[in-house]
């Protein structure tokens, strides 16, 4: 089986004043290509830290992360950025849209970074797909939370990522909007055949994935297949 992400004996600590705090302790798992995967656990269990390390946003103290065949620790910060641009998509809890850019401009940023021609046409199509064809020139502060997260979804799929990391994608939305966004996320993911990694403490959302791991106090508790 081909694995798109391999995590091997990953450990990460932070300094908090004079105290050393181990956030992740010897975590190992692998995610097969095209799978949907959930990382669950209570607050402070190390979910977000794990996501950051898997996506190359940070470097572990020990252990390795191999993403799309590349060991992240061997890359410089800029090389990791380029890898993310080519292979990775992100959806954040707080949407993380650039406030000074319109919806369309936000969506096309990853494409422009890749040097894709006609990025705007692709961006337009994606926004139409998430139901925001009439909101192309709106700025984030002119959109509702649900709409902002849909723009973020369009952006996440813009560069046709091999893997998409979603950090509590419905955490800032009401229940009904959250459901709609979840449906859209899975729909787009299925269509694109992207590997999806969701970090959440929402068990209902986690159960929608093929695989689930549970973190507690920085340690991997259970590696289970979704019901």
């Amino acid at each position, binding site marked *: 089986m081909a694995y798109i992400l391999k995590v091997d004996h990953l450990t990460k600590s932070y300094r908090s004043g004079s105290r050393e705090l181990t956030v992740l302790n010897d975590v190992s798992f692998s995610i097969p290509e095209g799978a949907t995967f959930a990382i669950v656990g209570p607050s402070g269990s190390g979910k*977000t830290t794990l*996501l*950051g390390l898997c*996506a190359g*946003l*940070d470097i572990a103290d020990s252990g390795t992360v191999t993403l*799309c*065949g*590349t*060991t992240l620790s*061997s*890359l410089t*910060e*800029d*090389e*990791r*950025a*380029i*890898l*993310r*641009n*080519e292979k*990775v998509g*992100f959806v*954040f809890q707080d949407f*993380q849209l*650039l*406030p*000074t*850019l319109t919806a369309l*401009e936000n969506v096309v*940023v*990853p494409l*422009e*970074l*890749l*040097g894709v021609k006609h990025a705007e046409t692709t961006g337009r199509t994606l926004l139409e797909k998430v139901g925001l064809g009439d909101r192309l020139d709106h*700025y984030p502060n002119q959109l509702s939370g649900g709409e902002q997260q849909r723009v973020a979804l369009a*952006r996440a799929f813009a*560069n046709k990522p091999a893997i998409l990391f979603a*950090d509590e994608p419905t955490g800032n939305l009401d229940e009904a909007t959250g459901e709609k966004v979840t449906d859209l996320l899975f729909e787009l993911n299925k269509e694109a055949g992207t590997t999806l990694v969701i970090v959440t403490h929402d068990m209902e959302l986690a159960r929608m994935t093929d695989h689930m791991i549970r973190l507690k106090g920085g340690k991997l508790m259970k590696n289970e297949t979704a019901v």
Partner: protein
Amino acid sequence: MNTPKKQKAGFSWLLKMAWRDGRASWGRILLFMASTILGIGAVVSIQSFSDTLKENIAFQSKELMGADYIIDSDKEPNERVQFLMDSLGGFDAREVSFASMASFSGTDQTRLVRVRGIEGGFPFYGSLETTPENAAQDYQQKGGALMDATLMMQFDIQPGDTINLGEISLPVLGALKKAPGSNSMFGAIAPPVIIPFRFIGPSQLVQLGSRVDYEFYFEDTTADLEVLDETVDPMLDDENADLDTHTSTSSRLGRRYENFGKFLNLVAFIALLLGCVGIASSIHIYIKEKLGAVALLKCLGATRRQTFMIYLLQIAFMGFLGGIIGVGVGLLLQQFFPYFLGDLLPVNLSLSVSVPAVVSGLLLGVIMSVLFALYPLLTTLGVSPLQTLRKQAAGSSLSRKWAWGVFGTIFLSIFLISLWLLDNARYALWFVIGIGVTFAILSGAAHLFMKGIKRYFPKHWNFEARQSLLNLFRPQNQTLILILAIGVGSFLISTLYFTKDMLLAQATLEDQQNNPNIVLLDVQSDQRQGVTKTIEGNEMNVISDIPIVTMRIASIKGRPVNEIRRDTVNEVNRWILSHEFRTTYRDHMVDSEELISGAFVDSADRQGVIPISVSENFVDDANVSLGDSISFNVQGVIMPTVIKSVRRVDWSRMEPNFNILFPAGILENAPQFRVFTTKAGNENVSARFQQQLVRLFPNISVLDLRQLLNVLQDLLGKISWIINFIASFSIITGIIVLFGAIRSTRFQRIRESVLLRTLGARGKQITRIVALEYLYLGALGSLIGILLSLISCWLLAYFAFDTTFVPSWFPFVVLFPGITLLTLIIGWSNSRGVIKSAPLKVLRRE
């Protein structure tokens, strides 16, 4: 293992992103830009004006001189000079000029004027501008005088009235508006009167001791002026004459104005620096707000260089735009300069755009903006993409090495720009040190103030007063930048006031019994008794009656002056070798003198070497010291002397002072004339006395020191006007920086105010908190600035001017409350909207 390929987004994407991001922040970017516009405008206006003036002077050099070249001397040309002039084809026109008293028919008034007796077709270039116009052509033939237009207006003299000069009376044919060779600055002290040369003899005004200038004009368009300068001029130097070409004279004149321009440029540069401090502070907050976007862009795949470049481009563009507007402002401003400077300008100015000034304005805009934004900009490099997930993720501060690197680059750049503006490495270095010290003291004071408040916090004060004090050291406070902006502005303006006071105080006539206000020059020995009688007849006293003997230096330390002149590495100042010294002899020192080395010899006889006393300035310029020998040519007689003492002379005293002082017993029988000083109780007595004196002794020149002081004050007034004008740019820049700083922290203030309002604070209380905060800042900034300038001016007075410094009250009474009030108004008006609106409405809008 796959290594990622190179990023594909190119420069055009960076530009696009810079534009997209800046688009939403235009208002703020404009405000940053505004803080540099005036500084650049001031620098460009002065640079462009200086360049234009220099060009005009060079272009009009022949018109300024009226001839191709001049040979001039302060004594009648000897055979050798005559021979040299003949070998050049002979002069085409000549002039004798000197200061003399003039009186006018139909009025009792008298006035010191500069008589210019002209023969020949002078001027050969340019013209004598007169009213009526034909007077300039007719005066030679009709035998009349052309009189300074301002003087005619002051004395209400009409063409046809008579002017009396010594023994002659001539009809005034017209008002002289402009003449080559007349300097408006000296013209204010002794206005020019042009008469035909043939009347000089009959006037009997040229007598022993008269300071007469002989000028011979040459019209020769084919002459190689550089060759003349190099070959004939040194020969003439040996004969105490001088050759000036129109090109050398204009470049000398150009340099004189250029120096003033350089000084103004520095004042303007300070305004620009102040604006840059504003930029640094505003960009700091701006970039801080952008760190989230930087992290996100990195998360989406942008490299560190790309994110850095997006904001660098934004700031460079802002600087460029500021440069363009600044250049426009500067070019507009230079149009006003001729009005400020008026007749201080030597030429009719046709203003043009100086390309180097425009280019330097644009470059300054970009360089200074980028330079001062560099520190906050570099922090973007350290931003971790992890901040998208964790807000508290660290890594956005600059390492100490980088920080020092940035500061070093800033100081080096300021030094290089100062060097370019001043063209003198030592002055540029002192300027940078001065700026550094001023900024360090101001920021040190701000830090101390904040520390002091923290330590000795007045817990018993009421809520508003305490809250406003707390605002001064909250996170992201603007205390430092506001104190810098207000402090530097106040420092500049009050320094200008104090310095002007100091200069004027130096020249002010102290109202004491023994301080003269009238000096009589060229009194012949046989007129001594008559003059004394006239003085006493007007119920005045002779304060001093000083004998004057003219002489030139023949040799220094045994080397003849001509040999020293030819020695290219000699360290003797040129004027020493050709100057006609007016010396005196006495057996005591006077109040304005202080013995600094050697022993003062009060009397001597002609046996052996004569012991003399020289001034400190003379020692420096002649490169001599105690015990050195100097020989003087006293009207044909060579007198060997030795320096026995050195005196410090207070030249600022408006009374006769001397570089060379002989002991009693040597010069008593030498040909001499005298200088009298006296004091007139009021203007009427002074006028009556001058009329009598001119009638009885027409050759005597009267220097009315009160009149001289008025001229000086007028001159200083004009100069200080333009300095104040340029310095006001610092103040306005300070206000813009203040405005920008307040706007930058607006959101934070709103949140605080909203929080306070939500907790139940009333509008009045918030107003009071805001007002008090700005009151503290305004008062502290202006007070430190004024005190700093007081200290620096006191040091200047003590070390440079050697005078007691009595500061003007203006900075304390007007500047201090004025700037404090201004700060309060700007701060309060910016927060008014926040105070008035409903909390939720404000938060939504922001």
